[in-house]
Every structure is written in structure tokens, then in C-alpha cells.
């Protein structure tokens, strides 16, 4: 299976010269998801699972500290059917999604503005560079006092953590545009707005995409911490509650979910990145 797909892929991508000579060559096929799902990536997780199983069945570690994979799966089923696990999951995902959208939209907008204008950059610079160094988690206690333990406080804090990497990368992406492209814009008599839209912003997109992928993962990690510190629902809340009640199986369920969702977020962002940057030729491994 894998080898057939591989052959197809190679056939479609071809060498650089072949690619150059074929009109409308199907360059998208080289960017498919399949690439990331070939067998080699499964070896390590399966090995770890086997080790986990062995460690529990040979009683290397007591079940109260490490439940078996099967017991964990059972706990997952119980949480899902009896304890409304999906509601906690949705509450975490919804916080992350909102925080990511608000934080990154504000960051791209302000990043472009600051990239285009030294004045804007100087206006925000000192404030941002200070706030940036106060971790989101340090903001949380104060913001919870203002907004309560519900979702808004967490959204605000996570949006703040999403904002800065995206803002800084957008700013530097705009500033690092190649001078020769700006000169071309001048030759083609592009207006300021046309230059921004056709030259400056597109040239910043690669660095914006990298920061979006990074901060999406960061947001997911932070929601677990934020829910652990305040509130009464969400995956983060469950994980700390499970620790308090010594429900190790539920604790492990939460960890596994966090891991899988993080993986899915990252792969989604990666696929998006490749799709948006399909004009860019990179090293394909």
C-alpha cells in the first residue's frame, strides 16, 4: 500500500526539469497527508504501548500509579458514557478555538500595521515588550478576579499567549521582504495599498504560518493549565481532579486525549501551512 502511494507520489513530483516541462503538473499530489502517515511513524508509539502493557501486567508499577492500557480504555468509555466527557472536551476546544482566532487575528492585524509603520511599532513596542514577558499564567489570577472563573478569563489569557509569537513573526515577516520585490512594485507603479496586498503581506505569510502553527499548539497546552488553575470543567480541570481523587486511570485518559488532540491540531496546521505555501519550494526530505 505504502509503496504504491510512494511510487505515485514520485511519479507525480518527478525531477525538477521534468516538472518544469509539464504544463499544469499535479504538484499538489506531493503535498498530501499520506506522507505523514506511513508505517515508520507507528513503530515507536506501538513499542511504547507494548512497554506500558508489559509494565502493568508484570506489576512493575502498581495499578494505582499506572493503570493498564485496557483499564485506561475502560475508564475512557465510562467517562464518555457516564460522566459527559465530551462536554468537558468541547469546553476546552471552544476556549482554545476562540482564543486562537482572536489572538491571531489581532496579532496579524497589528503586526502588519507595525511592520508597515515605524511609528506604530514605536508606539506599541515598549508596552508589548513588557507585557510579553509576564506569562499568561501569571495574568490569570488577576483576570479571574475581574472576569470570574468562566471561559472569558481563560480565552483572554490564552489569546495573549497566542498574540505575541504571531505578532512578532508578522512584523519581522513584513520587514524582511526582499528589496528587489519592492523595487519591482515601484517599476510596476503599484500604489501603497497594492504593494501591501500583493508584495509585502504575501512575503510575510511563510513566517506568519510558522507562528500560527506554533501558537495553536501553545494554546492547547495552555488551556489545560488554565483549567487546572481555575474553573470547574474542561480536560485540564478533569486531570487535576483525577489526581486529587487518585483516579489514575482517568488522569491517564486525559493525558492521552491531550496528546492526540495536540497531534491533530499540529497536523491540521501543518497541512494548512503547506496548502497556503504551495508556491514555495522547500526541502522535501
Amino acid at each position, binding site marked *: 500500500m505504502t509503496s504504491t502511494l510512494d511510487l505515485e507520489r514520485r511519479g507525480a513530483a518527478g525531477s525538477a526539469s521534468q516538472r518544469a516541462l509539464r504544463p499544469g503538473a499535479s504538484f499538489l499530489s506531493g503535498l498530501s497527508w499520506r506522507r505523514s502517515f506511513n508505517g515508520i511513524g507507528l513503530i515507536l508509539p506501538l513499542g511504547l504501548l507494548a512497554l506500558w502493557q508489559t509494565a502493568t501486567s508484570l506489576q512493575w508499577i502498581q495499578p494505582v500509579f499506572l493503570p493498564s492500557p485496557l483499564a485506561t480504555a475502560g475508564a475512557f468509555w465510562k467517562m464518555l458514557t457516564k460522566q459527559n466527557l465530551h462536554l468537558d472536551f468541547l469546553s476546552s476546544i471552544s476556549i482554545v478555538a476562540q482564543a486562537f482566532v482572536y489572538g491571531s487575528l489581532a496579532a496579524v492585524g497589528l503586526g502588519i500595521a507595525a511592520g508597515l509603520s515605524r511609528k506604530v511599532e514605536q508606539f506599541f513596542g515598549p508596552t508589548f515588550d513588557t507585557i510579553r514577558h509576564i506569562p499568561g499564567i501569571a495574568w490569570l489570577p488577576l483576570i479571574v478576579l475581574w472576569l470570574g472563573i468562566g471561559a472569558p478569563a481563560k480565552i483572554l489569557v490564552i489569546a495573549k499567549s497566542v498574540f505575541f509569537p504571531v505578532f512578532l513573526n508578522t512584523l519581522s515577516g513584513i520587514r524582511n521582504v526582499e528589496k528587489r*520585490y519592492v523595487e519591482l512594485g515601484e517599476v510596476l507603479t503599484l500604489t501603497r495599498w497594492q504593494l501591501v496586498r500583493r508584495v509585502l503581506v504575501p512575503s510575510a505569510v511563510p513566517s506568519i504560518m510558522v507562528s500560527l502553527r506554533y501558537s495553536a499548539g501553545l494554546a492547547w497546552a495552555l488551556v489545560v493549565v488554565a483549567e487546572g488553575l481555575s474553573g470547574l470543567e474542561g480536560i485540564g480541570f478533569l486531570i487535576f481532579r483525577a489526581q486529587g481523587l487518585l483516579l489514575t486511570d482517568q488522569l491517564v485518559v486525559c493525558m492521552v486525549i491531550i496528546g492526540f488532540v495536540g497531534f491533530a491540531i499540529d497536523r491540521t496546521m501543518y497541512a494548512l501551512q503547506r496548502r497556503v505555501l504551495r*508556491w514555495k519550494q522547500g526541502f522535501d526530505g
Partner: protein
Amino acid sequence: MTQRGSLDIRKVSKNYEVDGRPLKVLSDINLHVGPGEFISIVGPSGCGKSTILRLILGLDTGYEGDILLDGTRIAGTSLDRGIVFQDHRLLPWLTLEQNVSLALENAPLPAAEKRRTVAQHIALVGLQGFETVFPHQLSGGMAQRGAIARGLAVRPRILLLDEPLGALDALTRLRLQEELLRIWKAEGVTMILVTHDVDEALYLSDRVVVMNSGPGRIVGEVAVDLPTPRVRTSPAFASLKQRVLSLMGEYELEVA
């Protein structure tokens, strides 16, 4: 058909400031290019030949003297002057078609006419079928054709070529020289080619202007009155080449 522009460069000099002292890069340049003429400027690196193109383009306005296009002094960049750079400079995030269209963004044409012009110029350089391809998928020669299509799409009165074939391999370069001749004949646009390849200049142009450095100046001119297609190995071609090289002060070196 493209409107053929005539260009007059009168007593143009230019200084750069280097460590607080002025450095003369162009000294008393005088040049007339007639409508529809194809001229080449050759000279060693650093003789200011690319600087002249930048001045004609309007990218650099700090100079003495006058540059007139059809009798009007040029001021800033304008769509009546097109350029093909040595690096093709197609924007990597736009497809070939979008790159060519970008040149027409501010041209006073209705949208349908713009689309037609883009298709026409992609066809002119022989890139039909590659409209939706990104520049990184094109070979060097194809990308340079794309750049020529973009340069011509606005139907400039004069097309400037800044060593457009300098970065290509020998075979592709020969092929594109033929293309350039064909395009020049088809479009009839006035062209100024900057190159350091004397053969290329003699093969393509009506007139070769020879420059030298320190400060950048015109040291002579050779009219190429050979019939086309020109034969690079003919005695007449060789003797013109000898004249150009001796004007550059290089010929003695070459026989030594």
C-alpha cells in the same frame, strides 16, 4: 502595435557618496535611441551600464542632466518604460498569469482587455499551458520568458533589458537570443539591452554602445550593419567584435 518611443540622454552624470566623498559613477553620458531601435550597451562590470537603466526607469532620480522619452523629461517610474531584470523577479507567490497581470494592475484597460493582453503575451513568449504554474516550477529560461512577457504586457514605449540572459546556461541563452529577436520584430518596441557579452550585443542589436569605468562613460559606438540572421563566425562579425573589444581596451589583452 506598440508605440515606439525615442530616448534622449543628455549630459547625464551621477555621483554616489562613498565615505562622505563623492564618487563619480557616470560622466557626461549622451545617447540617442531612435523609435524601434535595438541598441546594446556593453562594458566591464562597474562601468555604470546598469545604473543608466535605473535612471531611465526612474528608480533613481538623483542625477545631473536630462533623460527624455519622446521629448518629455522622465520623472519617476511609469508604465511607458518596461524592464526585464537579470533575476527574473517573478513574485514567487503568484502564478505566471498573475505575475503578468500584476504589470497591468494600473494600466488604463478594461478587465477583459487585460485578460486578453496577458494571454497574448504569454503566448508571445511561448508559455501557453503554464499560466497557472508558480515560478519555482519553471526552469530558468522559462521564468525569464515570463519576465519578458511581463515587461511587454503594458506595451511600453521602450523595453530595458538588464543582462536578462546573464544567469542562463549557454544553450538556453542562444535560444532566448533568437526569441528576443523574434519578439522585437513582432512587437517593434524600442529596446536597450545591457550585457557584458559582446557576441550577444552584436548578434541582437542595430548599434553597440561601448562603456568603460572609472568614471563610467561612453567610449565609443559600433553600428552593426550586418544582415539578419547574423552569423557569429563570419569575418564581418569577427571584425566588428574586434572593434568593440578594442574600444573596451580589452583586445590587446586578449591577443597577448
